[in-house]
């Protein structure tokens, strides 16, 4: 009972504490306000007529019959919207020679994927709009579809955008040199060809937007289910020629995003134009079938990779070729090259070898756009690397822990860089590896596995090391010319009652942004957390910033909040010192009181400072102007990214007769630096792991030869459900980044980064006694039975 006091025992010490989310109570009572819920006066509803063909010329569009339907207010084609909206091109300057065709809200002459919106119908209700949409007649002239990533690159193959010359969006190589020699002389070479299926975000709330254009001001207000309101404010202003200050984007409660809701979608851009044409609010909510054919898809990589090792299992080099299909154009404004770029730069990242060669080809095809989704590129790079590491282990008869222990970058080797140019400030692979081994009781599991095998029960254990990119600076998008901010901003004020109001540019998607910002502000200002109100997701009421993506909310948004709180505290203490006739540095704030810094004796309440400042400034000495509101911005300036790391393990049981896999347990040891709220961090990891396990076992957007998505419904596309998912144990190592005072790095993508790699290694561990192996995800029962030679 006389345990020493820790940091958490100080008053208002919230950083490091598992506090629940104040804003979750509203959601639990059914009082969330999602874009799908929003109704505005005179609001109309849009529906879209979509292309049934993957590739076709638009010959003619006949809307006469549709226009006569009840409740129809507007029917718009690509040509109508092209008069208002300037085209966009999804390229970034730092991806040299990448190319992509211009895009418009709706196409004017051809369609390039099955499901592409062609005509917009706006009516009094969604049902009436859909009724009329059925009567729009579009004559198409079908063209040969480019579906396969190899066929797309063959000479003589149809070129989707002839003005670009071919179907290659981007081609890049990395080469440290010497790789051929190393492979020629290596004791061991392992290699494989890996396939990663296309999958998609399947947010519970589909994409949703309400655009409300008022020509009298002019004024465009957009209620948008997005994680990046500032980016869309800029895009809507520029592409529709509206002054930026007249565009307001509000992101209320968001029903899941995972990266999917930060890309430009054609329907969303169209809805802005429809509202401008009508001068009335227009709402569009994708239904689930539309989501599958219009939300970004992710992954879709074929990787041929080999790894060279010496006789002792020391990894010497990797040689990688990645081909990825991205749809008919590169997504805007972040491009569809980022995933491939991260795949070929993250290969082998946890390991110390320095020789590396890679070739990346990003290919156009007649499918829906592929772009950034949670853990962009990470699962691909991690799965390829970790499978090859296991193959080296098998070849050298090393245990999977021993091979990693031998090759992971030593914990005392930092700072250092990967052969692909990533700079690591400080990682903790070995500490995580050791913690994982203890946590999962590895030796016991191996013994149990051996015993069960004698009884015909086939369990598999797989582990995977990962490195995750977080806290991106301007090197991510800004240097490429994208108007996507790497900085964030906060406005923090003391209200007349002594409460605290924080409006900040990082956004809330359910992960707990508002909660952790409140924790940081409360701790650094010295007030009860219940008195801090955090506002996010409105370009009009928050400073401009990057918002939440690429694991930057806690690290960059959190540091912004910390620095802002410190600045406000200085201002408060300055006024307090004037009132108390004391030196500011002898005062502190605790629990909403100005206290004597040395003795913690209460001097004057914060609410009293506020009362005097706001209502009785006449009682302050002449020249005193209380500044109880501060605005502050923060952009990362040290390392280009704050890399995190960790280890995952998966334990599965294989039914070799049916090909079914039961996931028994999953473990994660993760190092995201300062853990601000352990419960929220662990839940980010768990949710991320399950998305990774979905990719590993279930999720795949399947296309027919003609480019038709053949499983585009929630009944056909499998997502992980409660019965299939295991309990997931999570532990931490905390290596702070010294680039910030807070020391936090990101964590939202860590779970997804390595879950499929650990799962693939686990399944292969179970398949090994059968002489079978698998190098494709999702690992469906059919693929497992094929690997086993049963079918």
């Amino acid at each position: 009972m006389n345990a020493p006091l820790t940091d958490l025992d100080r008053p208002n010490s919230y950083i490091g504490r598992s506090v629940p989310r104040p804003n979750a109570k509203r959601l639990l009572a059914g009082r969330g306000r999602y874009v799908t819920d929003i109704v505005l006066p005179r609001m109309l509803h849009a529906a879209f007529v979509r292309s049934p063909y993957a590739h076709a010329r638009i010959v003619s569009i006949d809307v006469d019959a549709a226009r006569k339907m009840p409740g129809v207010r507007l029917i718009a084609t690509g040509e109508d919207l092209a008069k208002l909206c300037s085209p966009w091109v999804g390229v970034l300057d730092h991806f040299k020679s990448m190319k992509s065709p211009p895009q418009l809200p709706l196409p004017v002459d051809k369609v390039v994927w099955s499901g592409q919106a062609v005509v917009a119908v706006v009516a009094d209700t969604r049902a009436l709009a859909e009724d009329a949409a059925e009567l729009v007649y579009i004559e198409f002239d079908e063209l040969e579809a480019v579906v396969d990533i190899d066929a797309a690159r063959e000479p003589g193959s149809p070129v989707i955008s002839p003005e670009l010359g071919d179907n290659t969006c981007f081609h890049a190589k990395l080469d440290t040199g010497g790789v051929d020699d190393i492979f020629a002389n290596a004791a061991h070479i392992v290699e494989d060809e890996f396939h990663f299926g296309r999958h998609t975000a399947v947010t519970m709330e589909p994409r949703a937007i309400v655009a409300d254009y008022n020509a009298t001001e002019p004024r465009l207000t957009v209620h948008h289910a997005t994680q990046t309101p500032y980016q869309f404010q800029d895009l809507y202003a520029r592409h529709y020629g509206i002054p930026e200050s007249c565009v307001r984007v509000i992101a209320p409660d968001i029903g899941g995003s995972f990266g999917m809701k930060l890309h430009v979608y054609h329907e969303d851009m169209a809805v802005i134009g429809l509202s401008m044409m009508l001068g009335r609010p227009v709402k569009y909510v994708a239904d689930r079938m539309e989501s599958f054919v219009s939300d970004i898809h992710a992954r879709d990589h074929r990787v041929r990779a080999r790894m060279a090792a010496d006789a002792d299992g020391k990894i010497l080099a990797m040689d990688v070729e990645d081909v990825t299909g991205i749809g008919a154009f590169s997504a805007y404004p972040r491009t569809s090259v980022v995933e491939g770029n991260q795949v070929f730069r993250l290969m082998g990242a946890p390991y110390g070898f320095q020789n590396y060669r890679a070739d990346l080809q990003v290919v156009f095809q007649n499918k829906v756009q592929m772009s950034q989704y949670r853990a962009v590129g990470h699962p691909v790079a991690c799965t390829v690397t970790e499978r090859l590491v296991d193959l080296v282990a098998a070849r050298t008869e090393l245990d999977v822990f021993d091979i990693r222990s031998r090759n992971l970058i030593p914990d005392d080797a930092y700072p250092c860089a990967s052969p692909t140019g990533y700079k690591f400030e400080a990682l903790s692979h070995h500490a995580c590896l050791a913690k994982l081994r203890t946590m999962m009781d590895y030796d016991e599991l191996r013994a149990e596995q051996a015993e069960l095998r004698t009884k015909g029960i086939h369990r598999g254990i797989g582990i995977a090391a990962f490195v995750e990119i977080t806290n991106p600076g301007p090197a991510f998008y800004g240097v490429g010319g994208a108007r996507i901010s790497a900085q964030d901003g906060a406005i923090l004020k003391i209200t007349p009652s002594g409460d605290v109001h924080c409006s900040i540019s990082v956004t809330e998607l359910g992960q707990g942004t508002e909660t952790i910002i409140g924790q940081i502000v409360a701790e650094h200002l010295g007030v009860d957390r219940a008195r801090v109100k955090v506002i996010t997701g409105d370009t009009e009421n928050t400073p401009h910033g990057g918002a939440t993506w690429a694991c930057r909310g806690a690290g960059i948004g959190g540091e912004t909040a910390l620095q802002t709180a410190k600045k406000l505290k200085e201002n408060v203490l300055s006024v307090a010192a004037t009132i108390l006739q004391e030196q500011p540095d002898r005062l502190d704030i605790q629990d909403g009181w100005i206290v004597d810094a040395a003795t913690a004796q209460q001097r004057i309440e914060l609410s009293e400072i506020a009362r005097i400042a706001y209502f009785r400034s006449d009682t302050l000495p002449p020249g005193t102007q209380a500044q109880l509101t501060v605005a502050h911005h923060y952009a990362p300036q040290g390392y280009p990214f704050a890399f995190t790391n960790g280890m995952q393990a998966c334990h599965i049981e294989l039914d070799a007769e049916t090909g079914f896999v039961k996931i028994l347990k999953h473990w994660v040891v993760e190092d995201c630096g300062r853990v601000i709220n352990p419960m929220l961090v662990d839940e980010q990891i768990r949710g991320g792991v399950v998305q990774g396990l979905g990719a590993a076992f279930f999720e795949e957007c399947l296309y027919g030869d003609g480019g038709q998505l053949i499983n585009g419904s929630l009944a056909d596309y499998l997502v992980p459900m409660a019965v299939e998912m295991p309990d997931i144990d999570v532990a931490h190592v905390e290596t702070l980044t010294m680039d910030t005072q807070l020391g936090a790095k990101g964590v939202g993508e860590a779970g997804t980064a390595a879950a499929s790699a650990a799962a693939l290694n686990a399944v292969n561990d179970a398949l090994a006694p059968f002489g079978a192996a698998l190098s494709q995800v999702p690992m469906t029962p059919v693929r497992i039975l094929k690997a086993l030679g049963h079918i």
Partner: protein
Amino acid sequence: MSDLITIDMTVNGEAVSCGIAPRETLADFLRQGLELTGTHTGCEMGVCGACLVVLDGRVVHSCLMFAVQAGGSVVETIEGLSDRSAIADIQQAFHERNALQCGFCTSGILMTAHSLLSQPGVPSRDEIRDALSGNYCRCTGYEAIVDAIEVVAQRRAATPQIAEAVA
């Protein structure tokens, strides 16, 4: 198609009499007609569980039935259960355990939890996961939801009067 049929039902304890288009689903009627937006639609084909409501004592998919089919029925949504404190302990456990993130699936999951926890006995974790098999959640990975429901089951078993009070 547009001819309205007058339907009487009881929603969250209040008598409702409305002209409803025959093709309107119960989910759309609750959300748009009655502005009970706590009920969500995630797939509109009875797979995701976001639209679950209590109809005449049974948990049903409000996206899979027409509103006119609910004539004469007693319907309860998340707003109703919440207002009469029928699931206050479940909501509290979800809040404490952070058994929700974006919250879009949460109303449906609370319906499933309410239904499961109204049965006698303390369900095992496997039974809880099985009961949740019709509820899709993309954010949490389910474990926190299972934890929260398990905690409520144990709390109710330890203090039976709570279970009776909320039934």
